[in-house]
């Protein structure tokens, strides 16, 4: 069930979009943990534990959280690279939660992914031309010239010279490789691109190039992004709306401005305050969280955050808060609200 009652998402530029492209309902993805006598499944890593959200056509939803919070798992589950344990994934009005085999492969042309590691995400034995043309070849029959033309076009779109066509991944720098990955994702003209930490492995100067490119392409190809990152400033730069995840749970979803201007969840507050700002004068009041993120295999009862929450109350360990809208377009899962 969708908890999002907002019928409209408002993009940063103020344009109003109505259609929901992706609707995630009560999604759960658990990894079994084997162990004990006879290697039975003794427990689950609750990587994604009951989250729901929507993405409207043409908007960018940022997903932010620390490592192990389940943001990448969410992305991969949506692409059905992982099997969801429970819940529904409705893409463009079609339930893709349980489709398999050829049907799933066919559905894949509409949603693509840009990966985190520019080194591991390109097959080292494939030439760039082959990497970028492969998605097209998987779905359509083209003759060689057409195909090459299309790939060259894509290369130029992402800012790579035509010579790149015959080269191999190892001949490029991280930023260029990431461009190749973007071109591969674009090849099928998908509706949704899930960008999973696309810039976290890059240097600052290159990071900005890639971020700019992604933004430009969005307008040009009418793309919808699910933008996953751990860097709040990057997410803020990219997204229309932002969801904050903690230990498999969505703790807060709000529009870009609303979230930064007035973070409601104590975790979001701490997260924002923890970011070192490139401004030595801005010595802000920092909320330093104590301890580490608990293991997702054995998450705390009640609110998953209560063990580190500076505002935790007794009931926090008992009641699991649900995401509720406290302001228009601003949802938070905390008993304080």
């Amino acid at each position, binding site marked *: 069930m969708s908890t999002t009652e907002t019928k409209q998402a408002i993009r940063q530029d103020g344009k109003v979009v109505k259609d929901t492209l992706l609707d995630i309902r009560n999604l759960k993805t658990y990894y079994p943990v084997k162990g004990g006598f006879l290697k039975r499944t003794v427990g689950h890593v609750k990587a994604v534990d009951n989250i729901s959200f929507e993405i409207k056509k043409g908007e960018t939803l940022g997903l932010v959280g620390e490592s192990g919070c389940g943001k990448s798992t969410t992305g*991969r589950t949506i*692409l059905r*690279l992982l099997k969801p344990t429970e819940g529904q994934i409705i893409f463009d009005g079609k339930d893709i939660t349980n489709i398999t085999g050829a049907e799933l*492969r*066919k559905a*894949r*042309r509409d*949603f*693509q*992914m840009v*990966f*985190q*590691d520019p080194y*591991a*995400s*390109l*097959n*080292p*034995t*494939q*030439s760039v031309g082959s990497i970028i043309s*492969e*998605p097209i070849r*998987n*779905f359509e029959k083209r003759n060689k010239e057409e195909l090459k033309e299309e790939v060259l076009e894509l290369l*130029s*779109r*992402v*800012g*790579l*010279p035509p*010579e*790149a066509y*015959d*080269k*191999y991944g*190892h*001949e*490029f*720098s991280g*930023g*260029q490789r990431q*461009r190749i*990955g973007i071109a*591969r994702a674009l*090849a*099928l003209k998908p509706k949704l691109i899930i960008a999973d930490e696309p810039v976290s492995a890059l240097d600052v100067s*290159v990071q900005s*190039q890639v971020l700019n*490119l992604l933004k*430009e*392409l969005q307008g040009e190809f009418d793309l919808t992004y699910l933008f996953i990152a751990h860097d709040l400033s990057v997410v803020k730069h990219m997204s229309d709306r932002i969801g904050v995840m903690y230990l498999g749970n969505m703790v807060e979803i709000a529009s870009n401005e609303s979230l930064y201007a007035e973070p409601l969840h104590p975790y979001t507050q701490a997260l924002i305050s923890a970011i070192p700002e490139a401004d030595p004068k801005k010595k802000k009041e920092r909320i330093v969280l104590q301890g580490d993120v608990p293991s997702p295999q054995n998450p705390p009862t009640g609110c998953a955050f209560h063990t580190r929450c500076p505002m935790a109350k007794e009931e926090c360990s008992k009641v699991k808060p649900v995401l509720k809208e406290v302001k228009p377009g601003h949802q938070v899962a905390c008993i304080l609200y």
Partner: protein
Amino acid sequence: MVNVTADSNKPQEKTVNMSPWAIARRKFFRNKLAMISSFFLLAIMIVSFLAPYITTQDISRVNIGQMSLEPGGEHILGTDKAGRDVFTRLLYGGRISLVVGISCTALVILFGTLVGSIAGYYGGNIDTMLMRFTDFVLTFPFLVFVIVLNTILFGIVDGLWVLIAAISLLSWGGVARIVRSKILAEKENEYILAAISIGCKPSAVIIKHLLPNVLSTIIVQATILFATLIVAESALGFLGIGVPQSIPSWGNMLTASQEADVLRNKPWIWMPPAIILTVTILSINFIGEGLKDALNPKSFR
């Protein structure tokens, strides 16, 4: 608009576009020891397979008048106790040893890769079942199996092929394990997820994306196997359960060394196969090392 020239620096090196294979090839060609070994092995192979054109001596004819002749004259390496030319038998023997080595390696790699990649890619129950089966094969009594197979197929199939079948059927376990673990590791790479997400079929993911990237491991394994299997053949020959004695192979030529007389007084009968076997294995090992180096993107040497 994207500025096409942005970040569009030419790739760092101004070389012809080199696929990883081309780079490996270049590195390999620069490795002297490996190249010498390759030439040696190639020479051995060519000479062995052209044996009928190189020497006109009959490999099976027993020449009672010419037994145990010392090297020299008509017989470069002398004759064995049956009066057969050692050199001729050495060439023909190389043929058998290499044929056994090559065909077993090919079969073992084929089967090991098949099982290993399927188990590694699919994981879960398929993996468990295949790996149990692999464990089983690895604990199989090899010697007994060879003898039994030889017996069952006696007269139906040539003894040589029985041996190849027996060795191949029981030796793929190690390769399967290695390929599986490599596939498991390689599977973690995001390009595999990428391949799935662009709609590649499982078979395409395995063949086009996983296998080329574990190929270096497989190639290195193949060289190790090649050496091991040649030794296995000769050891079986030495024990008297390998290639039938009517066909010379390096292993069964070496059986002669069990005779004290030959061992002590007629070294020309057993030393040539012993030395050529050792040198062949040595050169295969060097080639393997060379390949390992060449295929390892991190190696500098």
